């Protein structure tokens, strides 16, 4: 079947959206951009294709006896869990092999055998421990391989090195050298095999399902037999020039965000997007066509990175900032959205005895104030107003936005989609679809 794909290469994350010829979204995928845009776009696309298969599974399983109510979702959740485990174990095995190959390095003369023996033990233990992350009901903090494997490898390698008298440093060096290679290598082509093995596990494990296993297997096989053709791909975002695409496959993120927001909320006239390193104010018409835009200049003041920097300064996780700001009893005035100056201002306020929560609220207000200035330069806010980008997930930023929009523009409907991070990729996919279907 025809698939239209939009890929948004952001400075922090890379997103992909797959759309069918009617413009319906089939799948979404996201990965961290690292500093390798080629890999990031490949991984995001692969993830979106996997998510597409699940959408298609869902459509085909509907109406099947025994899968009424939440039955389909339960089956597919379990299928995804096992499928992820398959993928994970394949990658873990790849990491094992790569580490073994890298232990042949000149820096460890004559130690290869000893290192390999230690690696065998480490990876055996690692596999056993990490499999648990894919148990029913277990919530993984991330699906990025490095996040899952990294911390645990450190712990297990330390303990194993002690037991076997191997150098811990060497085990870490070998890992460091191998992880990037492995991360950047795509999984092997046998996606179908992985899905089917996962399905077998699900059917074996879930006794509560009263379905005809053969029938389910047939439906899944039929879906897997569908060829997902990459009919047209459009790339957008900060890293778009790095995409190995011809020029007509590359669209500005301004246009993609405008169109994406229009598709999510057709009455959108003003879009605010706050991403990792830029803030965009976009005005669109009733067809999603951009009529004006403004964005920050070369300085990333007041963008997502600003929050990242503040989180580092405060020794907090990025996702803890919003909730902390929500605890504020008042909003401390922060003058600077300059990432560098804000660090100094933050320490200043702390030294003056201000509560961290109040300072956090002030920092979020500062970001939104800057965004408001960019929006007003693009022509102000016209009902409806759609907020997108990573920062739209931050509740404290959203709260400040609501307040400032009301103060400056009165009652305006503000739209924030839970999938707003995919807005640019969605617009890209629609451009891809139009390039073929409306050509």
């Amino acid at each position, binding site marked *: 079947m025809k698939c239209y794909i939009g890929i948004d290469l952001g400075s922090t994350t890379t997103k992909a959206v797959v759309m069918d010829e009617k413009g319906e979204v089939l799948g979404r995928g996201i990965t961290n951009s690292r500093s390798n845009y080629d890999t990031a776009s490949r991984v995001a696309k692969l993830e979106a294709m996997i998510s597409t298969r699940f959408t298609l599974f869902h459509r085909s399983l509907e109406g099947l006896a025994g899968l009424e109510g939440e039955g389909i979702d339960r089956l597919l959740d379990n299928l995804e869990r096992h499928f992820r485990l398959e993928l994970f174990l394949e990658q873990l095995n790849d990491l094992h092999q790569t580490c073994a190959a890298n232990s042949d390095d000149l820096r460890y003369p004559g130690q290869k055998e000893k290192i390999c023996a230690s690696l065998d033990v480490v990876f055996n233990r690692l596999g056993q421990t990490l499999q648990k992350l894919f148990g029913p009901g277990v919530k993984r903090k991330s699906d990025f391989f490095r996040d899952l494997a990294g911390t645990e490898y450190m712990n297990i390698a330390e303990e194993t090195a002690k037991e076997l008298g191997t150098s811990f440093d060497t085990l870490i060096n070998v890992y460091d050298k191998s992880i990037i290679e492995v991360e950047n290598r795509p999984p092997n082509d046998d996606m179908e095999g992985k899905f089917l093995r996962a399905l077998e596990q699900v059917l074996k494990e879930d006794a509560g399902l009263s379905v005809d296993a053969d029938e389910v297997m047939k439906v899944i096989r039929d879906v897997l037999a569908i060829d997902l053709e990459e009919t047209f791909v459009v790339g957008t975002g900060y890293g778009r020039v790095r995409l190995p695409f011809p020029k007509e496959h590359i669209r500005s993120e301004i246009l993609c965000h405008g169109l994406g927001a229009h598709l999510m909320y057709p009455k959108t006239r003003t879009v605010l997007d706050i991403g990792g390193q830029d803030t965009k104010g976009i005005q669109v018409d009733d*067809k999603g*066509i951009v009529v004006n835009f403004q964005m920050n*200049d070369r300085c990333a003041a007041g963008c997502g990175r600003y929050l990242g920097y503040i989180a580092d300064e405060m020794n907090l996780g990025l996702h803890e900032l919003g909730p902390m700001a929500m605890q504020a009893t008042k909003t401390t005035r922060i003058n600077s959205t300059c990432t560098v100056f804000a660090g100094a201002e933050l320490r200043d306020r702390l030294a003056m005895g201000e509560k961290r929560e109040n300072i956090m609220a002030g920092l979020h207000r500062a970001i939104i104030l800057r965004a408001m200035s960019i929006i007003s330069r693009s022509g102000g806010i016209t009902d409806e107003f759609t907020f997108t980008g990573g920062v739209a997930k931050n509740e404290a930023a959203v709260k400040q936005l609501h307040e400032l929009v009301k103060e400056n523009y009165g009652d305006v409907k503000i739209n924030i989609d839970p999938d707003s991070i995919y807005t640019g990729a969605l617009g890209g996919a629609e451009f891809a679809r139009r390039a073929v279907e409306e050509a």
Partner: protein
Amino acid sequence: MSANAQTEVIKDLSMLKQKEMIARNYDAITSAPETGQKVASTFVPGNLNELINSFGMLNNLPEINAINNGMRKQSGAMIMDAERSGHSEDVCTYVKADIGMMSKGNIAPNGKPMPAPDLLLLSYTGCFTFMKWFELLRKEYNCETVMLQVPYTGDGVVTDNMRDFVVKQLKEEVIPTLERVSGNKFDIDRLRENLARSAKAEDDLVWVLDSAKKVRSPIDAYFGGVYYIGPIFTAFRGTQDAIEYYQLLRAEIEKRMEAGLGPITPEGDMGEEKYRLVVEGPPNWTSFREFWKMFYDEGAVVVSSTYTKVGGVYDQGFRHDPENPLESLADYCLGCYTNRNMPSRVDMIENYMNDFQADGLLINSIKSCNSFSAGQLMMMNEIEKRTGKPGAFIETDLVDPRYFSAANVKNRLESYFQMVDQKRQSSRQF
């Protein structure tokens, strides 16, 4: 420059001629201590080149030196030098490049030191910073200084009073100072001859600028335009050299038109003309080539620009007039783009949008130029309203390389071009 040196640059006869003229002028300036010729420092907008020359003096333009240093990638270090000596980051970077150039020995592009000016002649035409700049130079050189106070055309019209006021100053202050510094008596006939030559060259310049009205413009009126205005805006107005340069240029452009060619770029003839733009604001000089490439690679041609009018708005009909020498110098100064109020600037841009069949207006706003960046966004909105054509706004700087973010500018330009495309498509569809 090294990256550019690898691709061979195509040069026309007019380009070689201009290059030779500039080199000769720098040689004349740097050898002034030996030849005994006197040197006046003055600025481009409102410059009184015909008058200065009529006294046998040379004309040295500090902001042209700054541009030169910007294009030769020298200005960054000069600006940092000026900042070390106490000039703030927000100060006009032409000023800082000039001050930094002095601290580095004031070396001209020919490798020889510039002589100290014998006269600072400030023709004040709207840029407040110019005045402060010359105050700094006066302190440095302690030489004769004269200021021609040109009234700002706040109501958009030049009145007889304004003209009389300028002429009076020319007679009572500027000319006596020039006589004193040069040691020569004022010779009105010599001035008339110079002005007649100016008018001749101005005719050809206007013809060249107007050639962009043709769809499939044979010129780029911004990136190419800054070269075309070179002789008229600088030390050559009123000279035979300028007449010859514009004759050569006009002939070349005529040929391009006949052959149906687009503008010439550093990489040869430009391909398909996809977008016709009007640009407001000076170009960025430190990444001039890179900046230009962002346009011609996308098929964007600038068909008209306001920057090519800062040294005179000849396309609006003004000519230097030998019959009324001092009055015409006054009119010239009063009419400079920099001396025009906001509504006249908007009207002018609106006319350009219509006369040149432009697809949109692009504003390159200069970070360190407070006098001309103020109000530009409102000008853009007004043009959008009047013409229904989309505008775009980018920010760079004159000669501070730190203020040019290539990825950011490219991003905005590409978005803008695609926006123009999308608008066109939708107006066809619906």
